[in-house]
């Protein structure tokens, strides 16, 4: 990028009122150094050098992610009879089934908490992660039109896919609160960490979404593998059972490679005053970070070809 020492005066059409100055301008009217109006934008042939994520640029385009998310959110329940109630219906129906099969018939232990209350928060967060991951994975391809016609930092596509589900998550977690109140389960002081688990689940969805989205541009196999992948992931995550079922040792370490393990343990700890997450969950956290970092690297390295390949 080459900076220019001074900006030329802004051309203003006499017919058009000058738009209000927007982001990038300092109050004095002097263009800021990174004002997109006066900066050089370069599109050059790729070099071998790895290019990092341009966070400043992604931030400038943040409204795009927001608008895409808003569009998804608005459209999701438009022309439906139940509307936003679907956010509750889905996990509730799943809960009823699991409560009967695993709670009543299989009598899975639930750390001394009523089974339905034990399972529901985990089910909420799982529903969020699985919806967000599949949305992120398919986002670029389903918005092909955008990718082939306009420029925007591509990473915003999976980011925008993470947002709409958060609303559903908050709604369904409030219902979990109602369930807890009805059954007399009270949270402990760890409730303060609740936002952290939600944030972590966003990161997990983001990391896996980056991988799958970039892969899906190239190989449409992803669409077919996704349901199977998510189903497997569901059963290796301690959603319908307690992670305390797995005995300590290498098996537990292996189990904790699943980034969802720490999130669900943590969520139960925060909400239901269940036992605090074990040390093994640090593995989980490390895998989450690894997932996001490698996801970004892979996504960045393939994004420049998206428009040609998609």
């Amino acid at each position, binding site marked *: 990028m080459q900076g220019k020492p001074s900006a030329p005066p802004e051309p203003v059409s006499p017919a058009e009122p000058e738009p209000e100055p927007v982001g990038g301008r300092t109050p004095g009217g002097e263009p800021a150094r990174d004002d997109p109006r006066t900066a050089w934008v*370069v*599109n*050059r042939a790729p070099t071998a050098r790895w290019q990092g994520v341009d966070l400043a640029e992604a931030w400038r385009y943040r409204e795009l992610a927001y*608008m895409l998310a808003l569009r998804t959110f608005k*459209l999701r329940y438009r022309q439906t009879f139940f509307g936003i109630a679907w956010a509750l219906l889905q996990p509730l129906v799943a809960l009823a089934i699991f409560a009967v099969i695993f709670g009543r018939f299989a009598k899975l232990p639930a750390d001394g908490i009523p089974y339905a209350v034990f399972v529901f928060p985990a089910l909420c967060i799982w529903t969020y992660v699985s919806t967000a991951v599949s949305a992120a994975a398919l986002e670029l391809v389903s918005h092909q*039109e955008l990718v082939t016609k*306009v420029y*925007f930092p591509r990473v915003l596509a999976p980011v925008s896919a993470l947002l709409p589900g958060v609303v559903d998550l908050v709604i369904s977690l409030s219902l979990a609160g109602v369930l807890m109140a009805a059954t007399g389960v009270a949270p402990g002081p760890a409730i303060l960490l609740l936002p952290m688990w939600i944030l972590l689940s966003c990161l997990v969805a983001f990391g896996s979404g980056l991988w799958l989205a970039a892969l899906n541009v190239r190989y449409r196999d992803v669409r077919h593998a996704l349901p199977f992948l998510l189903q497997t992931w569901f059963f290796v995550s301690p959603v319908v059972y307690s992670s305390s079922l797995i005995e300590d040792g290498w098996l537990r370490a292996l189990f904790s490679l699943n980034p969802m393990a720490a999130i669900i343990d943590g969520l139960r700890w925060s909400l239901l005053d269940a036992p605090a997450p074990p040390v093994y969950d640090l593995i989980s956290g490390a895998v989450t970070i690894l997932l996001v970092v490698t996801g970004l690297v892979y996504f960045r390295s393939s994004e420049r070809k998206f428009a040609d390949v998609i």
Partner: protein
Amino acid sequence: MADLAVDVSDLGKRYRVGIGADYTTLREHMSTVFRSRRAARDDGEPRDLWALQDVSFSMVQGDVLGIIGRNGAGKSTLLKILARITEPTTGSARIHGRLASLLEVGTGFHEDLTGRENVFLNGVVLGMSRREVQVRFDEIVEFSGVSRFLDMPIKRYSSGMKLRLAFAVAAHLDTEVVVVDEVLAVGDSEFQRRCLGKMSDLQRSGRTVLFVSHDLGTVAQLCPRTIWLAAGKIHADGPTEEVIGAYQQSFGAPEIAARLGRAGGGPVRLDSVRLVTSDGAGLEQLRRGDPFTIELCFTNDETVIGLDVGIYLEDSRGVRPLDEGLSEVVGLDIDLSAPGPHKLLLDVPAPLAAKEYVVGVWLGTSTEDFFDEPALRFEIKPALEDSRDAIGKSRVLHGTGRWRVMSP
């Protein structure tokens, strides 16, 4: 060079159209990976297609540049690189400031959202902030003329309304560099007039504009300078009149057959374009005032519904004295339910100025273009009795051509 706005140097874009280029499933990719490296390279290399090569030019702020060239000459690839949608294989393109391209008209529009919601979504997609859209919202709505339907999902809009709304958003982008691609060819004439007005506004307000079009008349009207792209390279770059003149020269008679040969992309192929007398005899020479007929032969390979045909005459300044569409004639339809050859005649009645013309032909439906290019060049010589100042006189003849469908 302080106010350089666009700087393109040595730009090249290679597409691989061979083995390993298009695999879309993992298995196909695997099978190419396991081929010996050398074999893959030997097979792959000759199939490289350079959509752009050695393209260099620059524009200073306020320049208005036309870009012309046949289909496949690299115009859209160039625009895509300028807009950073795709990256070049060689060289670089530098843009000073923000770039908006009107080739993205309607991008991000969603049928189920209302007009209002789509304006905001589309504006942000095209690089405005929500505040900027808000500031210009009334202006946009007024320009589009759909204010009464703003809170209705756009799936209930007519296609014309959608287009007007989309163009209105794009036309109100406040960017330093604007790229316009062919969008002015749509909409009714009133709307086209307003679009052209908007283009002139852009120009006057000192914006840097790249204008891509097949409509040489508009290029000549708007752009002092034009680049002619041919096979991915800059074939000419200079004053618009010279470049357009040279471009039209290139549609010489010997080339027509070859050019028609590549018109087989869709289900309808153009076979020939000739000038004939009204009863179908061949014409050697045309004098001013002679009535003549344009004969069009084409073949459809499969059933086509709703075929429309357009024929225009264009002079070297890009003016079109004649521009006729078959669909404008009520009650005249071509039956394309079975494959076969067809012949269409267009009688051109009144005197045209004595000069060179290009016959442009468009074959397509409301959703698809099968052929859209200049197809024949001819000259009208002055009539023997013409005085010097009568030579250049001609009238605009829109709507006066008479169509006839003939059995071939």
